């Protein structure tokens, strides 16, 4: 049997029980004692009775003997015989009753001896009376007889006194026993009552606490039910057949069904589009076997036939033998997100078409401008003067420049649309290759190029390549005017991030324009000083941002510049 009672209450019960049991045992033993005591008392009374009887027999015989002597009535002989027999019986009873008391036994023995003397005397009287009344009277009234009577009386008196003393003693003992019993009984009774009262209070307190806990629990369960129903996501549970056995209000509102139309009536499968249904079959068995499923995207058909996109996560609830009881599933409504994604995809397609036509339609006229200018220079060289040639060259330079701008812009836009393909990228090898390629293009330059060991990064290889191409080209470009160009690439660990840097001893820039550094077509130097379209760093910035990282720079005019960037392990959500 399992005990649900509070430990204190249990102890109290055991205490009360043990008090009651000891009360019972004590009462029983006490009653046994009082039976013994009362039997002792009644024996004492019996002893007294028999002593009195012996005494009265003696006195009556004495009186009848006197009357016999005076009247000569012969009936005395029969009377005397009866009384003696009765006295003998009393004696026998007394002998048995008092044999354990020495004083009384001695008294009784004296009575026996005195009685024998008396019997002899009476026999003499009877014999003598037959012959002479006076002689018999002489014997009866003789001093020796009087002395015998008084001696018997004395012994009886002393025996009675002794026995009365015993009786008094026994009565007193009995009285003490009774008093002690009542005291103990009352004490135990009070203890029992007290224990029961304490137990009552304890149980009452426990019950009150339990009642309060039950109320709190039911309040909490109401709150949880409210949260369950009003949650911004869908909750549901499926039994082993895939039938919906629970579903919250949010879910029901999404799909437009009433609770009673769904619960225990529809399978979760029934809500799916055919394509999603195929996928769901696998997923449900997977949930049963592996115990959970995560981020399953399904398409739901609502009651009004509209589409609903949800992401479902579920955990299997199993009994202790591992049998599937039900699923505990969560659904997120991603319909809005899905529609937004579709819009983004459409917008991207449009953008793609636009850049395609830009690349084609803008480049062709530039080629014509450049081409025909060149033809003019070639075919009319003899008629064109120097100024005309210079003007034609300006036209051509600008056509070239615009061609570069368009190309860079297209690269920039392509980089934004390209999917990230993250892999482990060996930065040492990558930087090594890029450096080699770029330095090969620099002729007649003194370059001190240091590359310290670089940690690998988790990123898109082709984009990382573009980052280093642009950063190293910049470093080479802006340090061109130095006698010896010094470039250093390395990495360091800051706040658990690996920060890569590239430092040059070039012209640097004014930090107050640092916010313009990474903007598209933003340039901090004149085209005549350093060529470029102003897209390179914007492209680097876009790549780093797409990887979830950050890029920044530190520089001083004519003191060189340092660019820093880091790329986190995963893109933060």
């Amino acid at each position, binding site marked *: 049997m399992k005990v649900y009672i509070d430990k204190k209450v249990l102890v109290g019960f055991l205490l009360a029980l043990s008090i009651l049991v000891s009360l019972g045992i004590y009462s029983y033993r006490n009653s046994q004692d009082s039976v013994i005591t009362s039997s002792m008392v009644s024996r004492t009374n019996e002893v007294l009775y028999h002593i009195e009887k012996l005494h009265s027999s003696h006195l009556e015989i004495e009186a009848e003997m006197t009357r016999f002597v005076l009247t000569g009535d012969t009936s005395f002989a029969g009377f005397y015989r009866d009384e003696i027999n009765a006295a003998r019986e009393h004696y026998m009873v007394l002998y048995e009753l008092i044999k354990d008391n020495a004083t009384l036994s001695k008294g009784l023995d004296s009575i026996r001896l005195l009685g024998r003397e008396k019997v002899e005397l009476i026999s003499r009287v009877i014999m003598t009376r037959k012959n002479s009344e006076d002689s018999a009277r002489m014997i009866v009234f003789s001093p020796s007889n009087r002395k015998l009577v008084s001696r018997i009386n004395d012994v009886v008196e002393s025996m009675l006194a002794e026995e009365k003393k015993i009786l008094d003693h026994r009565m007193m003992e009995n009285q003490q026993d009774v008093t002690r019993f009542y005291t103990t009984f009352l004490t135990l009774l009070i203890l029992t009552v007290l224990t029961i009262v304490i137990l009552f209070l304890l149980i009452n307190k426990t019950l009150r606490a339990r009642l309060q806990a039950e109320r709190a629990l039911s309040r909490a369960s109401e709150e949880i039910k409210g949260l369950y129903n009003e949650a911004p996501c869908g909750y549901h549970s499926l039994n082993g057949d895939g039938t919906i056995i629970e579903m919250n209000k949010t879910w029901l509102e999404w799909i437009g069904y009433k609770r009673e139309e769904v619960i225990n009536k529809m399978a979760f499968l029934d809500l799916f589009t055919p394509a999603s249904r195929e996928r769901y079959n696998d997923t449900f068995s997977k949930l049963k076997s592996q115990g959970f499923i995560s981020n399953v995207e399904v398409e739901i058909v609502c009651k009004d036939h509209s589409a609903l996109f949800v992401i479902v996560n579920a955990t299997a609830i199993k009994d202790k033998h591992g049998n599937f009881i039900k699923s505990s599933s969560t659904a997120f409504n991603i319909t809005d997100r899905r529609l937004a994604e579709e819009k983004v995809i459409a917008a991207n397609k449009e953008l793609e078409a636009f850049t395609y036509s830009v*690349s084609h339609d803008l480049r*062709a006229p530039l080629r014509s401008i450049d081409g025909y200018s060149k*033809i003019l220079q070639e075919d009319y060289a003899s008629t064109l003067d120097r100024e005309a040639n210079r003007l034609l060259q300006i036209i051509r330079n600008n056509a070239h420049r*615009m061609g570069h701008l368009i190309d860079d812009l*297209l690269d920039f836009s392509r980089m934004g649309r390209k999917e990230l393909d993250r892999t482990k990228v060996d930065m040492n090898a990558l930087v090594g290759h890029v450096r080699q390629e770029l330095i090969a293009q620099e002729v007649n330059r003194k370059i001190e190029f240091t590359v310290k060991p670089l940690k690998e990064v988790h990123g898109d290889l082709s984009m990382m390549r573009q980052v280093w191409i642009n950063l190293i080209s910049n470093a080479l470009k802006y340090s061109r005017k130095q006698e010896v160009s010094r470039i250093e690439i390395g990495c360091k660990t800051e706040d658990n991030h690996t920060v890569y840097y590239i430092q040059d001893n070039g012209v640097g820039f004014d930090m107050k324009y640092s916010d313009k550094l990474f903007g598209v077509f933003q340039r901090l130097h004149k085209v005549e000083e350093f060529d470029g379209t102003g897209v390179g760093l914007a492209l680097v910035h876009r790549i780093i941002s797409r990887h979830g990282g950050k890029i920044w720079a530190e520089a001083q005019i004519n003191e060189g510049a340092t660019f820093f960037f880091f790329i986190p392990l995963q893109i933060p959500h």
Partner: protein
Amino acid sequence: MVNNIPVEVLLIEDNPEDAELTIRVLKKHNLANNLVHLRDGEAALNFLFDKGSNNIPRLILLDLKMPKVDGIEVLGKIKKDEQKKLIPVVVLTSSKEEHDVIESYKLGVNAYVVKPVEFEKFVEAVAKLGLFWLLLNQPPR
């Protein structure tokens, strides 16, 4: 345009200036002797596939973005034809778009050249590809 001399180069290009610049380069290198220039894909398909015509140029220079029928479609038709698919086709276009490059190669293009904006580079590109395909390369005969 069609005469008894076999066509050496078929230039399919909708932009007249680009066509003129291309022809100028080829002429300079004596590579445009029997050159035919067509302005769109439809004309190219008629030229190549019309009944009775048996035009097998030695080289086709093909632009991609053209009115009516675009270059990709023309390329597809050429490379599906048992006889015509042997003709070397070089795409000469302004498009750097990856999907254009991939699509052209999937259809079996022989070369893909992006027209440079700078004229010197353009001249160099056209001259090199003309010399290669018409002089250096050995076509099936």
